[in-house]
């Protein structure tokens, strides 16, 4: 049997935002481009299909404020030069995006706090991906779906070709340069377990089941310099009843700061009112992951119903705390005691969940610093929580040309990376809403242009 061989100037491995930005840019620089997407057409677009906005520098959200926000969430685990490149190019990127079919809309209902900093895609990330794929087809870019790269010829930083299984059949891919934009390893439970131990068994994966990290592993095995901690990821607390993969946005819960969160023992473990929710939602995945059984419950009373976007799963309801605890499978005594102690330490204040209000607890450990109101108005409601992994931060090191850096410190000859596969250079820890799309767009475009140059 003769194997099929396909040749191109620039091979783009991946099919999400960064990959498409790279493919479109490389094509516009005169390269013949081939895109290999591991997912079938209906699930194309990687995690980008679940996104909804991109953080953009604007007149009212300047470079310094953007940079300060990033510095704060990453705790300094970032590369200032690359980060500022992403920030500066973000505003101009929206013009480029519109030129390729992207459409924007005002901030979505319930997300008004992001209206100043983030540009929302009309219809969300899948609509954006559809527009990019249509633009790619128009430009004559060839796209293979169901095409998983399983082997590479990459020696001393020089890429010659790869083998992909397309609909299960091996196909040889030859290219003068390659852009790697195939995402992280969050859908690879085995790899997650290596970092997190057995706890990873209880993680839910919010995004695509196709990000198995195979390309990342091939690159690391071929001598690419790793960057980032395999344990670091963007993880939020999501509804525990969500599907194992691909649950996306509808599984998120925004009611945590409006009540208390207890673990399997019925005890609180963190300040639910530490800061405004958009600045804190990204730490709760990790917090729940550190609890016994990787599970927790958000408990609220009926006073706050209607103040948050409803989750797709109905709340567990009961007329007393004891009944609620029993319905959740928790100890009635323990939860009742927790609520009693919490209610007793709530100080009077003016409740306003849109600002850092003065409703707080006194003499309670851990405290609740804002939005602390007694949980006393039945019916009582609870939502079960599990860590929901959005994406992982272990990456390959790149320079400002998105050129992959090898372990000996020199950049590879014709290999470039974009998106989640290199986001760890900029996001060492923490997360800033919409920043993943910024990195993907900016470095996708850079990687595409540089790969086209390298292919000449």
């Amino acid at each position, binding site marked *: 049997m003769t194997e099929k061989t396909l040749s191109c100037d620039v091979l783009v491995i991946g099919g999400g935002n960064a990959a498409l930005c790279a493919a479109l840019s490389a094509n516009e620089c005169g390269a013949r481009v081939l895109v290999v997407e591991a997912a079938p057409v*209906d*699930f194309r677009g990687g995690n980008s*299909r*679940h996104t*909804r906005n991109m953080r953009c520098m604007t007149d009212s959200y300047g470079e310094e404020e953007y940079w300060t926000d990033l510095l704060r969430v990453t705790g300094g685990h970032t590369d200032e030069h690359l980060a500022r490149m992403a920030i500066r190019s973000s505003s101009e990127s929206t013009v480029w995006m519109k030129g390729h079919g992207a*459409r924007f*809309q*005002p901030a*979505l*209902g*319930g997300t008004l706090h992001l209206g100043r900093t983030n540009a*929302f895609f*009309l*219809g*969300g*990330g*899948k*609509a954006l991906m*559809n527009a990019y794929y*249509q633009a790619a087809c128009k430009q004559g870019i060839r796209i293979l779906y169901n095409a998983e790269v399983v082997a590479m010829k990459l020696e001393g930083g020089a890429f010659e070709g790869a083998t992909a299984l397309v609909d299960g059949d091996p196909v040889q891919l030859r290219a003068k340069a390659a852009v790697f934009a195939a995402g992280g390893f969050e859908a690879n439970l085995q790899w997650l377990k290596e970092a997190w131990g057995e706890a990873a068994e209880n993680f839910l994966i919010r995004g695509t089941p196709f990000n198995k990290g195979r390309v990342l592993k091939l690159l690391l095995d071929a001598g690419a310099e790793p960057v980032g901690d395999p344990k670091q990821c963007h993880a939020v607390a999501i509804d525990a009843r969500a*599907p194992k993969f*691909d649950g*996306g*946005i*509808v599984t998120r819960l925004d009611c945590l700061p409006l009540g208390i969160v207890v673990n399997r023992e019925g005890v609180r473990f963190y300040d639910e009112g530490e800061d405004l929710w958009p600045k804190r939602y990204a730490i709760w995945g990790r917090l729940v992951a550190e609890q016994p059984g990787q599970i927790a419950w958000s408990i609220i009373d009926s006073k706050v119903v*209607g103040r948050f*976007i*409803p*989750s*797709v799963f109905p709340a567990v309801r009961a007329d007393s705390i004891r009944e609620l605890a029993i319905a959740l499978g928790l100890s009635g005594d323990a939860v009742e005691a927790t609520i009693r102690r919490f209610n007793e330490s709530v100080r009077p204040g003016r409740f306003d969940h849109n600002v850092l209000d003065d409703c707080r607890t006194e003499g309670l450990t851990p405290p609740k610093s804002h939005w602390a109101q007694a949980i006393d108005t039945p019916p009582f409601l609870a939502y079960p929580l599990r860590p929901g992994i959005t994406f992982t931060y272990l990456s390959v090191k790149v320079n400002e040309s998105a050129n992959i850096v090898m372990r000996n410190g020199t950049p590879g000859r014709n290999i470039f990376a974009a998106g989640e596969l290199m986001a760890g250079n900029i996001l060492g820890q923490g997360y800033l809403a919409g920043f993943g799309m910024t990195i993907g767009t900016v470095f996708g475009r850079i990687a595409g242009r540089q790969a086209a140059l390298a292919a000449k």
Partner: protein
Amino acid sequence: MREGERLMTICNSCRYCEGFCAVFPAMERRLRFSESDLNYLANLCHNCSECFYACQYAPPHEFAVNVPKVLAEIRVQSYRKYSWPGIICSAWLVTALGIVFTALALAFTPRTSGGDFYAAISHGAMVGFFGALGVLVLAFWCIALVRFWKEDQSRPALTVHAFLDALKAILTLSNLSSHGAGCTYPDERHSQARRVFHHFTFYGFLLCFASTSVAAIYDNFFGWRAPYAYLSVPVLLGALGGIGLIIGPLGLLALKMRRDPRIVDARQDGMDLSLIGLLLASGVTGLALMLLRGTAAMSPLLAIHLAVVAALFVTLPFGKFVHGIYRSAALLRNVLEQRHRDQGQHRGER
């Protein structure tokens, strides 16, 4: 209905589609979805499918969200519910009606040549028959409208401004515009084709209606009898309308044939095709009658044309045509809801 409620719950916690059309903001104004809410949302939906292509939960995702198809299914049920006496006819019934009417008309129409319509069919018979039919159609539409409108428990006050806003949405089909890009019909690429062909059909129909109305005024108030000169107002309006009723339905039919099968509720094809077919047939026979009115073909053509129009009239309250009634009412209700909410917010801010 269950399925509709399930989807709306998913949509309401996602909200990515709220910029597309009126359906999603209207959905966000609700936390629960009763049958009447779903009927209202289903009739507000223009079936453009943009939300299907943009949906991260569309099949084969396990949530299998297919809003346009489910709303289409609910919509046709709502026609049965609100239209009195609950009959919705399909292509078979319409074809049968068409054949019967045509046969009767041909059998009873004497052969006359020359341009005198009333020598073929008496003036009194024509006016009496279509007048009665017209009154009945209006009565059925009013019943349907009232039954649909009564479902809305809140019933905010009607204002002229709200009427005008709704009228604009009806006349421009702004919900099919998708911010100027056009809707995703018949496939995922944006296009204005469906909107344009619907305009041809809709305005073609209105022009034909205007032509008949002007002719009726000529006849009743001035005593001017048809046929009118080629450059007279009724003939010009009718000719333009007839052209619209040929281009529009043909275009809609061509688009419908290429529609993405994942979104089509195939059980409605009969209903859709009946209306398209009858409108097209009215346009073709009307134009033919106008062009050949001086020849011997006049009297059979007149009989056929009137038979087709009669079949169309009979199906107006029971066929696909009612979508216009409920959609218009839903658009008006939507405007009223929006205004009500905006005023509420305004008060809240103060």
